[in-house]
């Protein structure tokens, strides 16, 4: 007979709250009148995320490897990563709640009469909220999952809603749908690689738990381990958009509705890096000498290509996409470092980068003309003169991406490069510094464009943001600013939380 498994509900509660809220959201879709649905959904989402945050605070000192039998490990770093996801999601949900960004009816053919009617009736696709919550739940599970199957399930749980959400833009819907298709096909492709790799890791270790894989070191044949590491890495490197698995990023970032891009750019990175860190720090740590050179090369390629190509972009969303590629490269140096410092630096970097990214995409959502958002950089010319506040905030965020001192971006890079340096990986530090120097020039070019060039006639205006966007952008910006000026606040926390348990 089977004995009933016991679950640590307290430790799992943050995730359970989010999933439960998503299910409630589905019920709301089914049974609630159209008029109050949006408000109810937003309330549920924010409430659930806040509640999850409170739960995370309550369990901050607990840890266990058996919270969900052996599938999930709740430890310090896991809690920090989950909290990062939840905080960033809280900020992102306010951007998402500005429904002007989403299609009135996804099933209507773009340009059809049906769409026009739906727009006229001010329909809303409120299913966005449950989908969003499912994605958040998956992202919370991903960095704490400790066996390959839970990892795979979590990966799909947060990916599927994102594929869908990417296709729901209100304007330029063809592009949005195309983004969804590309993201979906390539994402599924990458998951297939992940799964194939997982099979070989199982073949190597005889078990699918990360601890088992690390324990099998030396006793089994390494060919399977290497195949496994390579293919599992491909799946994860795709999610963090590392070269050469990055090519979806600019297209999808550009096509998806801007708030979803913001959410995706910030939170996916946290979740995927969380998982990557756990897998490499726990599962593959014994095989360090085998994967470190490979990941180092990928990291260098990623940071250099991302920085260099970001230069050439004429679309602001694509530019940030390449910037996110470059940042993936910088973050990979934290993986390569394979030390407590590296972990702490990565945790800090993820939080700081996430905040900055959210704010930047929030700002992009504000710059519009009569047909919607304007992402063509040539039309941002002179923006700073017309709206000095928005211009200065964006300039600040760009400087933070560039890693100019006094910004959180600098502290993050500093911490992560110093960790990489201490682990003896000089190549990565040198290329990182060079890549940031290249990038810095061109972020500054954009700033000059915004501030010092005279506005052209067909230029754009900045809409007055709604209270929700205002809160979300200002919270993200202020937090990013504070972490730049007084990084100790976050850095100390990150250092305290930088432990994985086996």
């Amino acid at each position: 007979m089977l004995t009933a498994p016991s679950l640590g509900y307290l430790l799992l509660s943050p995730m359970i709250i989010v999933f439960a809220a998503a299910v409630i959201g589905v019920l709301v879709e089914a049974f609630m009148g159209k008029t109050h649905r949006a408000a109810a959904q937003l309330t549920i989402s924010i409430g659930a995320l806040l509640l999850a945050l409170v739960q995370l605070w309550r369990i901050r000192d607990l840890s266990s490897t058996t919270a969900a039998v052996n599938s999930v490990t709740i430890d310090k770093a896991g809690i920090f990563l989950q909290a990062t996801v939840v905080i960033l999601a809280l900020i992102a949900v306010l951007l998402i709640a500005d429904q002007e960004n989403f299609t009135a009816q996804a099933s209507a053919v773009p340009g059809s009469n049906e769409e026009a009617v739906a727009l006229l009736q001010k329909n809303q696709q409120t299913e966005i909220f449950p989908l969003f919550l499912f994605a958040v739940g998956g992202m919370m599970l991903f960095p704490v999952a400790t066996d390959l199957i839970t990892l795979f399930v979590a990966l799909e749980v947060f990916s599927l809603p994102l594929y869908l959400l990417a296709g729901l833009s209100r304007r330029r819907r063809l592009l949005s749908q195309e983004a969804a298709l590309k993201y979906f096909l390539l994402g599924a492709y990458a998951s297939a690689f992940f799964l194939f790799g997982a099979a070989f890791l199982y073949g190597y270790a005889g078990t699918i738990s990360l601890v088992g894989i690390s324990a099998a070191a030396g006793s089994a044949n390494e060919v399977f381990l290497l195949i496994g590491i390579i293919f599992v890495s491909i799946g994860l490197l795709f999610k963090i958009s590392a070269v050469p698995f990055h090519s979806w990023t600019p297209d999808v970032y550009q096509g998806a509705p801007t708030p979803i891009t913001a959410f995706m750019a910030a939170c996916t990175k946290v979740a995927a890096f969380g998982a990557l860190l756990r897998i490499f720090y726990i599962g593959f740590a014994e095989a360090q000498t085998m994967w470190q050179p490979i990941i180092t090369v990928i990291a260098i390629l990623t940071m250099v290509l991302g920085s260099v190509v970001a230069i050439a972009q004429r679309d602001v969303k694509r530019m940030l996409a390449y910037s996110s590629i470059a940042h993936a490269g910088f973050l990979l140096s934290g993986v390569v470092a394979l030390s407590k410092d590296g972990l702490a630096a990565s945790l800090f970097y993820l939080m700081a980068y996430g905040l900055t990214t959210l704010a930047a995409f929030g700002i992009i959502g504000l710059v519009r003309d009569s047909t919607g958002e304007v992402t063509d950089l040539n039309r941002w010319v002179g923006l700073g003169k017309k709206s000095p506040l928005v211009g200065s905030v964006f300039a600040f965020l760009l400087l933070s991406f560039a890693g100019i001192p006094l910004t959180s971006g600098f502290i993050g890079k500093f911490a992560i490069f110093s960790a990489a340096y201490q682990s003896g990986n000089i190549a990565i530090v040198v290329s990182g510094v060079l890549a940031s120097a290249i990038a810095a020039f061109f972020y500054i070019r954009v700033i000059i464009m915004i501030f010092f060039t005279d506005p052209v006639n067909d230029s754009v205006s900045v809409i007055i943001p709604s209270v929700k966007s205002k809160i979300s952008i200002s919270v993200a910006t202020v937090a990013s600013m504070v972490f730049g000026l007084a990084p100790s606040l976050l850095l100390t926390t990150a250092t305290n939380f930088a432990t994985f348990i086996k």
Partner: protein
Amino acid sequence: MQTSENLLWLIALPLFSSAILLLAGKRANSWGHIMGTIVSASTFTIGIIEFFAMQSRSEENRAVTQKIFTWISVGSFNVDASLLLDQLSICFVLLITGVGTLIHVYSIAYMSHDLDRRRFFAYLNLFIASMLLLVLGDSYLNLYVGWEGVGLASYLLIGFWNEKPAYATAAKKAFVANRVGDVGLSLAIMISFATFGDVSFSGMKDSVDQASSTQLTAIGLMLLLAACGKSAQFPLQSWLGDAMAGPTPVSALIHAATMVTAGVYLITRSNFVFDAAPIAQLMVLIVGGVTLLFGAIIGMAKDDIKKALAASTMSQIGYMILATGLGPIGYAFAIMHLLTHGFFKASMFLGAGSVMHGMKDEVNMRKYGGIGKFMPITFLTFGLGYLAIIGVPPFAGFYSKDKIIETALNEGGIKGLILGSATLLGAMITAFYMTRVVILTFFGNERWGHKDEPHESPALMLVPIGLLSVGSVASGYLLYKGDWLVHWLEPVVNPLKVHHKELLPPIVVSIMAVAVVLIGVSIAVLKYRGEQSDKAPERVSVFTRAARKDLFQDNFNEATFMRPGQSVVKNLLNIDYLLIDGLVRGVGSVSLNAGNKLRVIQNGYVRSYALLMVVGALALIATIWVVTA
């Protein structure tokens, strides 16, 4: 090392005052300038007190620190937000707060008609705070904060009258040049960290032996780049002339006396790096030498009085940078010249402002002439500054410049010869163009072409100028007497560490220096005596034309940096597509149809992306295939 609780006030007071002025808005219009001035004066008072307290202590106990809070703490790496007041920084503190206060006073009158005077004072206070932070920070990171702060204040003040497009352009130029410098500084910080695991001055100084010469050279070159940006040195010099668009007190305070000397401070502060990195030090010498001649040549052709003075600033800072490149003994002389220059250049700028005040904001010297008799006090003070800058004994400039020339000549060999001639030639040209400025402005026929006679400025403007010109008379001798400054700075830069040989007796050098000055003055007098036209002559030599165009520095920048930069950008545009598509095309489907090719370059195909992933995976598999073979 002693600790002190007072250092923070030096920065906090002006910062606080600046915030109040900005936040209070129009309500502060009536008292804002008074408060700004009082705050500046109190920082000067604190500076004086600290100076005498420091002097009364024994040499090894003179430096004081104050830790404010722990800024960054990652693993073994710690950066505190700490302040350090030592013999070097006190010089700067006194210069900044002293000259700063005088300029505050001057501005009360100069800006009295400006509706935004309160905002102006807020920026001035912000500048004082940042500049003090720059010189008081005890690590490169803290210095960087101040460095950015002064950049911001400078940018705000250059563009203070930003309704005029030319002024906004000037602000932009300054912004770009300074960012280039900033990138240099941040790279220097990163490399230092990578090398030493520390970015504080004391920590790096202690472990400088452990670093390789390559690393030190790299740090040194990056620091030099930073200094070039901030101090308007070749090849980042072009912004300074345009920065004269700002109000004259700003030109005097920021773009003559204090901020532009931050580069000299940076190099002097980093003396331990440069002393161990001969290549970087040589570059410093080259940059300094080139700039001092460059600035002087531009100065000869400028008709705009402020731009002529700006060119002279560039050239004088070139002297200082050159001096810092001369090794331990040079640092002290660089700082000496920096201090005396602070006095006489500020005094002359304020004098120029006074002239402009009387001439309805006319800046073209060709439309001046004979002003001396209408504005006797301005004439007197400007004249004292003039004598100081060209180096007539016993005015301040003589002592400081003479020392630099002497040290340069004493380098010996070809190097000494080149450096010595450059400094002497510079001195001659300086004498020439400064004489030209004085003659065109204060002597000769009256060329302003309107009825209103120039009038002397109000006392509130004249008093600061007067005090500054006292400084330009006396400061040189005071600092020189008994090598006072050299001994004072000894613990910081160790100027007497290396025994320097004397190739020529000092008196001979002095005579040579005075002789070239006399030559320069005579040529100018011969050329500009008598009637002058109010228009610049059209038919001039190639050299004059080149100098008028700032030796084509903008064209040069455009041709060397901007155009290639743009084309690099354009080419880089294609890199990603080349990577994805270059693979695709590389196999060699040579299509004759160019249009077809263009279409191919524009990718966006999912399948190409998938192929890239497969190829990436293939590369990884190939790697492990090789490894496990």
